[in-house]
């Protein structure tokens, strides 16, 4: 399953809810304001590092770059562009957006 989160982790509970529901082996893609979750020093950094032990975490780099956060991404996060986003959707049988 591909989980997509587009909300800032400190503004809304969408990421929290995603993290407590994502099964081991899932892929989590962060887009839009969701990308702040994988930036160093954010309050949710420990939670993200923990989920990365069992899930693949990706972030859309155009969204990181728009927000000036491209140089502060947590190690191990896979950065993708819109083509990579399309590939992730194609590779996973189901897609769940956490709105």
């Amino acid at each position, binding site marked *: 399953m591909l989980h997509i989160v*587009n909300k800032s982790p400190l503004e809304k509970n969408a990421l929290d809810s995603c993290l407590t529901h994502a099964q081991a082996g899932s892929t989590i893609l962060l887009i839009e304001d969701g990308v702040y979750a994988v930036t160093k020093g954010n309050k949710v950094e420990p939670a993200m590092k923990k989920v990365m032990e069992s899930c693949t975490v990706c972030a859309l780099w155009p969204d990181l770059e728009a927000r000036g956060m491209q140089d502060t991404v947590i190690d191990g996060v896979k950065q993708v*562009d*819109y083509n990579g986003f*399309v*590939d992730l*959707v*194609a590779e996973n049988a189901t*897609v769940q957006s956490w709105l």
Partner: protein
Amino acid sequence: MKFGIMVNEGPYNHQSADSAYQFAKAAIEKGHEIHRVFFYHDGVNNATKLTEPPQDDRHIVNRWSKLAEEHGVDLVVCVAAGLRRGIVDENLAAGFRISGLGQLVESGIQADRMVVFGD
């Protein structure tokens, strides 16, 4: 592969209308098919032809119309959500059509993947 897309937010106010467009464009360029883009909730506001953004900004509505024109993408506006928000035949932009919610469910059945963009 066939993708269905659902867009739940209006243009300019939320980035989801932009993300949905960028996703659709990339999918087409990679050789996939967009089965349908279904506009629901405030997403119906993507379909007004009366939009005139500043000249140095992207034109979200025209971008969708062009996608329909060049790639035959089916852009469907929910009739009930549109009536609530004043999106009707009178102000409908080129390339969009108004239809029922059944078109969303149908897209979920026929497409290989359904991706929801919203708030």
